[in-house]
């Protein structure tokens, strides 16, 4: 019921649906630029699909972090958490249903992105791989980030603080893929950061699949395990910290 309520509240208001529309406009802009810009259109098609895949995953992570990091704290700030805790479901179920509502929004965002991936990859054998790998990595990362965000939202009890904290975490996770140059990535520092960063693993795996055409799961298993391990760690943290919510307002 709580899950349904979250979804309905999100999509019956312009504010909730604005995420999806804004994301589709960004995908449209990037896909159109990639295919029509006189220099970008000369890129290898695998590179184009990879760039779009990166943007889709980055959008999903950002969306889940921002949405989930205020999901408990906003209840505390508005004084509705007490009422929520009176419902005959456990505190962990409340957190889980809220987390699933975020993952559902990611699922819609991902569904919106599929036509773009297919169009940009048309004429190659990359479309199916792009859709599958973006789906796998996006879902794992969005689930993990949502769980961490909910925990932070609960611990900090302030939407402003939890959103800022999660934005910083997301920027740190995305930095190696978006801001590190090729030479910096090849240094010991860059390699160490990329080895421990699950988002870098996901992006490097997409690069390997779409640019280097290494499409089998066996070739990507090292990257997939790293992302799964990150999701499992986030799950343990989520389970440990959502056992009991206390009814205290933020001071």
């Amino acid at each position, binding site marked *: *019921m709580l899950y349904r*309520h979250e979804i309905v*509240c999100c*999509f*019956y*208001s*312009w*504010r*909730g*649906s*604005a*995420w999806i*529309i804004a*994301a*589709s*406009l*960004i*995908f*449209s*802009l*990037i*896909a*159109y*630029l990639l*295919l*029509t*810009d*006189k*220099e*970008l*259109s*000369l890129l290898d098609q695998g590179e184009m699909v990879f*760039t779009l895949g990166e*943007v889709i995953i*980055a*959008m999903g992570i*950002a*969306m889940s972090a*921002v*949405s989930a990091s*205020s999901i408990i704290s*906003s209840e505390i*700030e*508005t*004084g*509705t958490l007490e*009422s*929520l805790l009176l*419902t*005959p479901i456990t505190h962990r179920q409340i957190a889980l249903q809220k987390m699933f509502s975020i993952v559902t929004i990611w699922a819609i965002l991902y569904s*919106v992105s599929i*036509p*773009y991936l297919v*169009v*940009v990859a*048309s004429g190659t054998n990359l479309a199916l791989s792009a859709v599958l790998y973006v789906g796998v990595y996006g879902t794992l990362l969005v689930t993990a980030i949502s769980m961490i965000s909910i925990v932070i939202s609960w611990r900090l009890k302030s*939407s402003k603080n939890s*959103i800022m904290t999660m*934005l910083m975490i997301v920027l740190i996770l995305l930095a190696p893929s*978006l801001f590190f140059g090729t030479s910096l990535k090849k240094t010991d520092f860059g390699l160490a950061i990329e080895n421990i960063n699950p988002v870098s693993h996901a992006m490097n795996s997409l690069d390997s699949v779409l640019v280097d055409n290494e499409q089998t799961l066996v070739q990507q298993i090292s990257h997939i395990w790293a992302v799964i391990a990150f999701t499992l760690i986030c799950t343990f943290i989520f389970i440990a910290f959502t056992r009991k919510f206390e009814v205290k307002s933020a001071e």
Partner: protein
Amino acid sequence: MKAVLSKWNESSVYWNYSKVNKVCMCSLALVFVLACITTSLLGTAAWGNQILPSGSESPPSIQDDIKIDMISSRTVHAIAGQFIKIEGIITKLNQSTSSNETNRGGIAYISIVDVKDRVPVDLEDWSAEKGLYIPSIESGKSLPLEWNVRLVKSGLYTITILFNKDSAPYSPPVTSSKTFLVVAPKLNLNPGNILPVAFGVPAILIGIFGTLNYMRGRKVGVYR
């Protein structure tokens, strides 16, 4: 159980619009920042005007005993994105006096110069093999040279083949005559049928969410 749930529904102010507003504004700001970062990473280049060549073709260069002839036509017209072949022939003339030099080779490479911007072109995206190592050329023999060049950007360019002899590292390279390359821009407004998707998906989403919002508004009395 039902009674408890309905009581909870009635008593709780579940969705606080002011707080949601703040969160959504933050979300949209983040989307905007992400869009700016992405588009700045992609980048675009300005269109260049094309200037047709006016100079005359210089004769093949002969330095010492090496001659390079450009086989490709003097002016090549193509469209950005196409691959062209640059072909030449390197010949070692029978003028060699030193027997040591008979089997000496060197590196043959191409140089592309942007005539409009007056700068040499970085060949990283243009050609996979910039240089060809020739271990040796016997006197009186010729070797074919060939490069596949991808035309990355529209404009006017000159292409020259150069050869650096191993035996004379400090002497200037032997050069071929120039080939003028006129690259026209590639114009395609709807490659891969992107336009229906790029405009259709946001339009459909706006329609769906607009309808949902309107139906909800009618239900609660916002729209009459």
